[in-house]
């Protein structure tokens, strides 16, 4: 079920809210949580009910493994590590099979000239997201950061429908404690939830889907073998840069908004990433919950920056390459991840040079920071071409066009103006959490508190803001006739 569908907005969500809050009102807190778990399974099964079995199976095995880890730790047995490994193998095995089996076999066949046939393995929706949440949970159990848990809370932590299929990737320490406090939900949170959801819906329906109309035809044409000119290629790349930001951050806003309606605060996932002045800054602002997972459960265990500069760079590349192919089994995603890994290495190396040559004052120089922003933005745009392109050939063809190898072309005002307006908004305007002064959940190391903005721009519990948000929501509904899927559903 899509957030931007009538079924979700007018049937599923109101019914789920009614049941949940009625049970809460009747002081049936555990039943209220149970109702959310049931609703989440309905939400998940809407695409393909058979994958509910996979989700339940994985959750059940994780519960058993989690109990074994806790018992082994209590008895100081070394078998805790064994159970952790079993848990990682099961979760990563399922993810690996569903996500990479076809890619692996196809490439093996091409490389060895074999003809292994395994049929098309369909990716269960959301598996990339909930696998990471469960891995973090098992790992923290092993490290003793969690010593007990309730199956009901664990089930809601994994299945909670606002973030089940496309994140934010929540950490157990920031949501599970909230499940025990659902009897006291501030009314303001619900109003805030409506605002977040409306802004997210507008970003998706009014902006991302419009930007897609300026990107998709050109990327499809390149995939079909057409050669784009310079102007068209840059226009398409900018349009996609706008589309992916508004699309994914819209989903995150809507997820946060829906969760707030149930009294739960989710972590933020975007912090105006196109305002970044360097690529390290970009990764602190883009898909924040993925970045912190990769940092805490991959980069740091690999040694992080503790084993010398060379090893740090290798760790960065490994982390970003794996982060790239997490998005999909394809060479384009691998190159996208590798590029960002290289960007980060260059960024870190540059910071080393700045420190060594005592050039720190440059960091406050306006021209220098503007140049930093520009080079970061362009690097991100170039990498998005690989991310969006359906094949490596088409990505290379578009990039060749962007370097002017295929003629200049005739500039079309709309093709540049529309993405330019959208991107300017992403660079200049405050983001949703700044407007709403949203406070993310406590529990994790980086809470990303919103940078303050002028009082006049801040959302309040007022009639004026209710009208603004109402207009935005109504307009979004009116534009919703053509339902389109969110980009991040495929990952």
């Amino acid at each position: 079920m899509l957030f931007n569908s009538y079924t979700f907005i007018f049937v599923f969500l109101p019914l789920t809210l009614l049941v949940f809050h009625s049970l809460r009102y009747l002081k049936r807190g555990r039943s209220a949580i149970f109702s959310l778990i049931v609703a989440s399974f309905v939400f998940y099964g809407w695409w393909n009910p058979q994958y509910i079995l996979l989700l339940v199976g994985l959750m059940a095995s994780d519960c058993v493994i989690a109990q074994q880890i806790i018992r082994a730790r209590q008895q100081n047995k070394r078998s805790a590590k064994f159970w952790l490994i079993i848990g990682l193998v099961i979760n990563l095995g399922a993810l690996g099979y569903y996500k990479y089996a076809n890619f692996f076999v196809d490439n093996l066949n091409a490389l060895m000239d074999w003809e292994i046939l395994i049929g098309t393995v369909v990716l269960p929706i959301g598996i990339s997201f909930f696998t990471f949440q469960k891995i973090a949970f098992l790992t923290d159990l092993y490290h003793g950061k969690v010593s007990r848990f309730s199956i009901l809370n664990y089930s809601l932590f994994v299945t909670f429908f606002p973030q089940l299929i496309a994140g934010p990737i929540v950490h157990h320490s920031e949501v599970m404690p909230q499940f025990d406090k659902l009897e006291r939900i501030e009314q303001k949170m619900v109003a805030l939830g409506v605002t977040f959801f409306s802004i997210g819906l507008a970003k998706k329906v009014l902006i991302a889907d419009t930007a897609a109309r300026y990107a998709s035809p050109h990327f499809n044409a390149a995939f079909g073998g057409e050669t784009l000119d310079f102007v068209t290629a840059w226009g398409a790349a900018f349009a996609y840069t706008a589309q992916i930001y508004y699309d994914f951050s819209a989903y995150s806003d809507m997820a946060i908004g829906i969760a707030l309606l149930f009294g739960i605060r989710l972590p933020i996932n975007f912090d105006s990433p196109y305002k970044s002045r360097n690529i390290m800054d970009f990764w602190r602002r883009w898909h924040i919950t993925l970045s912190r997972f990769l940092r805490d459960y991959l980069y740091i265990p690999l040694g992080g920056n503790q084993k010398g500069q060379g090893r740090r760079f290798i760790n960065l590349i490994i982390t970003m390459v794996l982060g790239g192919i997490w998005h999909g089994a394809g060479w384009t995603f691998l190159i996208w991840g590798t590029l960002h890994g290289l960007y980060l290495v260059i960024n870190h190396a540059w910071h080393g040079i700045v420190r060594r040559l005592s050039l720190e004052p440059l960091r406050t120089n306006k021209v220098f920071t503007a140049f930093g922003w520009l080079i970061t933005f362009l690097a991100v745009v170039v990498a998005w071409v690989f991310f969006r392109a359906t094949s490596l050939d088409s990505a290379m063809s578009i990039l060749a066009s962007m370097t002017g190898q295929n003629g200049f072309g005739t500039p079309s005002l709309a093709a540049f103006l529309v993405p330019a307006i959208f991107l300017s908004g992403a660079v200049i305007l405050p983001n949703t959490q700044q407007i709403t002064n949203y406070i993310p959940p406590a529990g994790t190391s980086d809470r990303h508190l919103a940078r303050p903005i002028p009082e006049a721009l801040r959302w309040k519990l007022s009639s004026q803001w209710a009208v603004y948000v109402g207009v935005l929501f109504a307009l979004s509904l009116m534009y919703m006739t053509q339902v389109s899927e969110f980009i991040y559903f495929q990952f």
Partner: protein
Amino acid sequence: MQESFKKHILVFVLTVAVILLASATVNIVVDPFGMYRLVELEGFNDSKPAIYNRVRLLKAYEVRRIKPQSIVLGTSRVHLGMRPSHEGWASQYDPRYNLGFDGATTKEMYAYLVHAHKAGNLEHVILGLDSYHLTNAPATAKPDFDSTLLYTQQDWINPFRMAAADFKILTSISTLQASLNTVLAEPEPRWLAPDGQRLGNVFFYRPGENYVECGPRCYFDEIDKLEVRYKLEWKIPVDENKPLRVAPEPNTDPMTSMDYIRKIMAYCVNNDIKLVIFLTPSHAHQLELDGLTGNWWSVENGKREIVKLAAEYDKSIPVYDFTRYSSITTEALPPEGTQEEMRYYWDSSHFKQPVGDMVLDVILGTNSAGGAIPGDFGIRMRPDNVETAISRLNETRQSYQNHAVSELEKLEVWVDNFMEKHGIKDE
């Protein structure tokens, strides 16, 4: 000063409601797709250009309002050529409605049949099928087919579906845009009759129409060229080095086109609806194109299959075959470069109303045409005469090919050129 939560939510809900209600009101009054027909003012909203591309939507609502007792289902051939106001038909059933639309598939026809039945007191269905329907190709629906506009067999859910469909359309920005275009539109002749028929005599003579601009013969040739594409494009080999521009939509319906014909038959029999099937009287060029593109076998098999299916029921379902070589369907084309009109055809696919009248005369046993209907025009096919009919089809085909040599040479050239251009090999 922070207001109360309740007031904030109330103002939000009211704002949303006012905007959506305002949009719905404008759309109900202007009614760009002809859904309600509550207000029709000359010079304001009587000309509705938006229905040109929304015939499936319009007809879903017309059926709800008219509650026809008798319908004719089919593609654009039926939409153009079959007249619900036919005298013989009128005497038996009322109200009648032409429920044909462009490119209708059997899956869509089945959905609209159920819709019409649930909307009122459907008693009589005339189903017009084209050759391509009588195959085991996967059942499909066109992109503008919207099942949520239609009644289903689950009666309890229908009121909710209808309300949801209305809400969705009335609060859509594209409907609002269509309303604006309707109010600003220049008046144009009404080509869609209230009984659902597309009036060829109006439609083809609108300013700018290719039929007028290029002339009837030229138009006929243009459509023949398009038909070559329709009948061959599925045979274009996939070039692995040049992937499809857009990945084809996965077809999740495991049923075939023929399966839905079977469902239509079963539904009518189970609900005491009198069903008559006819194979449409397209021009002989259509049959020739089937032959030239290697689809002749499917024409023959289709006839056998439909007769076999129809005979499976206790009171067998009548099947009339007009897809044959007759003195009507072999009408000679006007000379090239002239504006001379054909008597029976707009193009090789679409027959004119007099032909539709003759079809109804044969089916209903009436004689509205006044004159005698040629004896070779159509026959009722049964299991005991289907093979004879097919043999006769092949004989008359031969005879036609001997007579229409120059016309058919052109068709052959177009087919050869298309196959050569797209690398399609002879089977």
